[in-house]
C-alpha cells in the first residue's frame, strides 16, 4: 500500500520498515555511519571507538511469561552494543507513561529494570520521565540508549562475511515471538514457552576472547527473525548463505504453535539470541564457547556462507528442507499474522 498513513507493517522490522526509513528519513539524514544500518553506530573519539545505539520498546502486553517491557529494554540495548563487539558502559532510560498507569505496575517494572541492570552489570546512568494524558500512549513506552567501548582490533560488520564462513545461532528460535502472540487476546493458547529475553554481552565477550580475528559479524535476530537478518547479511556482504532446516534449533512447542497459526519460526522475533558468522576453522571451538554459557547452551551451527552464483545473484539465502529439498528464504515483508488458510 502506498499509504498516506503509517501502518503497523512499517514497524515490523521487515521490508516495509526498511522502505519507510529509506524513503522518509534517509534522504535528509544520510551520513556514512547511519547508512551502514548496523545494530550500533561506531564513533571514533581519539583512539577509542565507542558504540552508540538506541531502541524504543512498545510491546503489548507489558508483562509476559519470561519477562516484561523493562527487561526487554535493558537487554535489547545491551545486545545492540554487544553485536558490535562493544563492552557496554552505560544506558539511558526514557519513559513515556500514560496517565492512569497503575503505580504497582510501575514499581514492578522499576524493580525489573534494576534487576536486569544489576545482573548485566551495566548501570543506568541517566534518564527521563514524561506522563501523557490518558489515551495518548498505550500504558508505557520505553526508550533505552546505550554506549559501549569497542575493543582494539575488533571490527564486526554485516559486510565482512566471506565465502567459507560458518553460520552459528546461539539457541532456540521464535520463543519470544510465540510468547507474545500467545499472550495477546484472540489467540487463546496456553503454553510453557517463555520469552528468551537475555543480555548477550558476556557470551560475546567470551567469543571475542577466544578467537577475535575469526569473528566476522554478530547480529541479534529481533523483529523480522533469523531469516531477515541472514538476508541482510548476504546482501551486504554480497554472498550466498545456505542453511539446513534439520540444524535449526526450534523448541517443539514453538513448532506446534507456528503450525497452528500458520507462522514460520524463521521470521519470529528473538530477544536473547545471536547469529555469529565466523571463520570456519574456528567454528567448532566458538560453538563450544557458546554452549558453555547459559545464553548459548543450545547453540548450533546452522549453515555456511558461499560465493554467490553470479555477481547479480548475491544476497540469496537457501534452505535445505527437512526432506532434502531446497527453497529460497526471503526477508519478512510485513507483520506476521496468524492465518487459517
Amino acid at each position, binding site marked *: 500500500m502506498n499509504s498516506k498513513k503509517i501502518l503497523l507493517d512499517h514497524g515490523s522490522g521487515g521490508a516495509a520498515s526498511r522502505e519507510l526509513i529509506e524513503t522518509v528519513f534517509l534522504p535528509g539524514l544520510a551520513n556514512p555511519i547511519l547508512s551502514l544500518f548496523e545494530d550500533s553506530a561506531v564513533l571514533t573519539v581519539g583512539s577509542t571507538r565507542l558504540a552508540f545505539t538506541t531502541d524504543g520498546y512498545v510491546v503489548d502486553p507489558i508483562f509476559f511469561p519470561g519477562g516484561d517491557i523493562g527487561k526487554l529494554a535493558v537487554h535489547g540495548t545491551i545486545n545492540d552494543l554487544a553485536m558490535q563487539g562493544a563492552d557496554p558502559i552505560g544506558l539511558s532510560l526514557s519513559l513515556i507513561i500514560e496517565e492512569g498507569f497503575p503505580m504497582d505496575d510501575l514499581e514492578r517494572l522499576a524493580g525489573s529494570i534494576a534487576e536486569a541492570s544489576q545482573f548485566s552489570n551495566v548501570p543506568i546512568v541517566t534518564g527521563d520521565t514524561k506522563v501523557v494524558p490518558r489515551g495518548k500512549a498505550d500504558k508505557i513506552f520505553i526508550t533505552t540508549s546505550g554506549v559501549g567501548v569497542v575493543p582494539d582490533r575488533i571490527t564486526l560488520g554485516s559486510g565482512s562475511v566471506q565465502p567459507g564462513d560458518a553460520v552459528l545461532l546461539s539457541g532456540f528460535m521464535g520463543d519470544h515471538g510465540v510468547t507474545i502472540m500467545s499472550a495477546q487476546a484472540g489467540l487463546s*493458547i*496456553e*503454553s*510453557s514457552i517463555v520469552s528468551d529475553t537475555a543480555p548477550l554481552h558476556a557470551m560475546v565477550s567470551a567469543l571475542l576472547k577466544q578467537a577475535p580475528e575469526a569473528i566476522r559479524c554478530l547480529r541479534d535476530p529481533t523483529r523480522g527473525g533469523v531469516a531477515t537478518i541472514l538476508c541482510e547479511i548476504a546482501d551486504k556482504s554480497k554472498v550466498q548463505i545456505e542453511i539446513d532446516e534439520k540444524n535449526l534449533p526450534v*523448541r517443539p*512447542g514453538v513448532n*506446534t504453535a507456528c503450525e*497452528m497459526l500458520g507462522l514460520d519460526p524463521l521470521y519470529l522475533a528473538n530477544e536473547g539470541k545471536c547469529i555469529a558468522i565466523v571463520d570456519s576453522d574456528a567454528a567448532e571451538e566458538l560453538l563450544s564457547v557458546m554452549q558453555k554459557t547459559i545464553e548459548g547452551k543450545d547453540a548450533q551451527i546452522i549453515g555456511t556462507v558461499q560465493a554467490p552464483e553470479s555477481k547479480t545473484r548475491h544476497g540469496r539465502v537457501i534452505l535445505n528442507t527437512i526432506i532434502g529439498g531446497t527453497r529460497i528464504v526471503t526477508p519478512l515483508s510485513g507483520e506476521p499474522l496468524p492465518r*487459517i*488458510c
Partner: protein
Amino acid sequence: MCLAIPMRVNEVLGEQGDPLSFPVAIVEEEGLRKEVRLDIVDRWPDIGDYLIVHAGYAIHTLEAGEAETNLKLMREMAEHVTGKNI
C-alpha cells in the same frame, strides 16, 4: 484454505448432544494446551485420540493407529510392496 493440525486429546469437557452446552476438548501438543470446540466433529473423541483442529474447532477425530496405518501404506508404496489405495 486448509490449515489444520493434529493435536492429542487430554480431556473432554461437556456431553455429546447436550444442546445447552458447547463441549470442548482440551488438547495438548508439546507443551501447548488449547480448548477445541467439538460442535462439528465426526466422532466423539476419547482421551488419547487426536483431533484435526481448524480455526479452534475439531473437524475430525483419529486414533494413533489410523495414522500408523496411513504411514505404513506410504512406506509400502515407497518400497513397491503394494499398489493398493492408502
